[in-house]
């Protein structure tokens, strides 16, 4: 009986020949992640255990990205917990302001997420690293504490769903649109407890960055993980960033799927998810919804490619007088590249604001909170009630090209609709 890529990785990490959906296993983890919101709880729980050392000081990443640069005293106290723990335990991968970036953009960039790994993170968008052919999933702080102590985590082997994306992509259609289309189709619990395996010719043409933004949103369909088998592009991306070893797994041709869904991408145009669920997917074209703010950034679309696309559209144009544009490069590396390439000047000349890497407005933390009744078009991944501020504010999700074009037009639109 064949196995899927997800099953193979989990079997290998549980020391088993094979595993089946539904089976509960205990697996070795290769990387454990936590941020300034979730790690303080995990660290407290770890300390309560009374053991002196973490299982491996090289395999833990502590990334204070949500409220940093610290927005208030309480956030500063939380990051202090991480900083002190990192020093005391000699945690190699702790990154403070000036080095830190949004976790799911930062770890792939540092070569810390690689094919074949098992990664758990006390953050739901940990599923991002599946884009590189790893099994990667979000967990809670207690899971993080347990993994820091034992190097292991419990998992139920998920059923796998296969998504096949066929046909040539239309202009301005990106990985973000593939995933919004998918969530729009299956719903926010359409992949509950399951592995989402993304395949097909349209996937192979995506850049690694786009694949990361796609796997990033597997959780928005309820998925346990999103995964894409490594190809040449993946290997090139990973090898450029690390000399560390990794194992490439792929699904067998006779692997079992609970569902196989095919999409004809030639019919799909850039998509916007309307409030208050990522599944409220509608075409961006002729949307006409008036917006107050545009946010380009986050672990979904705050990478260099995203900023390049946005800058290309904003060049020589101005942000609409009733719109505030906020651009936040996801990492220091992205920030530095954008500076060098002249993208930041384009944003500034267009009358947008640019800030240091942080999650910030994505979760309504700081740096662009919405007032009652305001609407924001964001390149992030969640548009729940109150996500970016007042419970009566609204968040719309789209790719960076749609975001940049809409910032200029003042209403949500397809990039083609710019004169």
């Amino acid at each position: 009986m064949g196995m899927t890529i997800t099953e193979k990785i989990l079997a290998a990490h549980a020391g088993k020949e094979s595993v089946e959906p539904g089976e509960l296993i205990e697996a070795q983890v290769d990387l454990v992640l936590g941020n300034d919101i979730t790690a303080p709880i995990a660290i407290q729980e770890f300390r309560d255990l009374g053991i002196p050392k973490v299982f491996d000081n090289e395999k833990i990443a502590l990334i204070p990205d949500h409220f940093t640069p610290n927005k208030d005293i309480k956030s500063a106290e939380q990051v202090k917990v991480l900083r002190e723990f990192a020093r005391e335990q000699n945690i190699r991968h702790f990154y403070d302001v000036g080095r830190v970036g949004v976790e799911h953009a930062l770890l792939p960039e540092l070569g810390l997420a690689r094919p074949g790994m098992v990664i758990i993170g006390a953050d739901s968008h940990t599923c991002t690293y599946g884009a590189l052919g790893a099994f990667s999933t979000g967990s809670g702080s207690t899971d993080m504490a347990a993994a820091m102590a034992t190097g292991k985590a419990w998992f139920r082997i998920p059923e796998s769903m296969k998504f096949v994306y066929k046909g040539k992509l239309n202009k301005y259609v990106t990985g973000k649109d593939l995933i919004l289309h998918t969530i729009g189709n299956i719903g926010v619990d359409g992949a509950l407890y399951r592995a989402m395996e993304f395949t097909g010719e349209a996937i192979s043409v995506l850049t690694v960055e786009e694949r990361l933004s796609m796997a990033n949103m597997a959780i928005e369909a309820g998925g346990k993980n999103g995964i894409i088998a490594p190809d040449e592009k993946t290997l090139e991306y990973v090898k450029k960033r690390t000399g560390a070893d990794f194992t490439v797994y792929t699904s067998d041709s006779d692997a079992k799927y609970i569902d196989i869904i095919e999409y004809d991408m030639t019919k799909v145009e850039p998509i916007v998810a309307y409030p208050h669920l990522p599944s409220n997917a509608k075409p961006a074209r002729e949307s006409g919804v008036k917006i107050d703010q545009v946010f380009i950034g986050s672990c979904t679309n705050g990478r260099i490619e995203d900023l390049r696309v946005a800058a290309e559209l904003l060049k020589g144009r101005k942000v609409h007088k009733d719109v505030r544009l906020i651009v936040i490069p996801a990492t220091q590396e992205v920030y530095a590249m954008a500076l060098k390439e002249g993208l930041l000047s384009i944003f500034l000349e267009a009358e947008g604001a640019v800030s240091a890497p942080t999650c910030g407005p994505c979760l309504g933390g700081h740096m662009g909170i919405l007032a009652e009744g305001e609407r924001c078009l964001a390149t992030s991944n969640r548009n729940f009630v109150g996500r970016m501020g007042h419970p009566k504010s609204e968040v719309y999700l789209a790719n960076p090209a749609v975001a940049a074009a809409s910032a200029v037009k003042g209403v949500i639109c397809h990039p083609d609709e710019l004169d």
Partner: protein
Amino acid sequence: MIAHGNAWKFGNDINTDEIIPARYLNTSDPKELASHCMEDADPEFMNKISMGDVIVAGNNFGCGSSREHAPIAIKAANISCVIAKSFARIFYRNSINIGLPIVESPEAAEDIKPGDKIEIEFDSGKIKNLTTGKEYTAKPFPPFMQDIISKGGLMNKIRSELK
């Protein structure tokens, strides 16, 4: 273990931002978190509930972020159990790991009306609606999870294994 209380009903896809909005996540103090429990789904929730009350919800309860603050806020608000048609997986996992009783029962979640008096027997998975007299049986936990629950959460299980 038995839980007792009045039902408070919520719809589908209640997410972690509604359970505990991110603007309060600069703390992990359970009492402070509890004071904002369910705030963005029902701003008056904390003023209305009594000790031991039960949250009854639709599909995919707890979807969204991995914040353990969500089950912690509910537990610290003295909610004795959450009954839902289904749970988002990280919320499910976190609830088990921290010891918040949760029960999956599509029938009970559908039938129960706001304000009904509910009794839940966790060992047998029986849910009784004392207002209507109706009974339901929830899906039992697999043995592996029962072990975590009976030891009082994942950290206690590890503690017992470390000895």
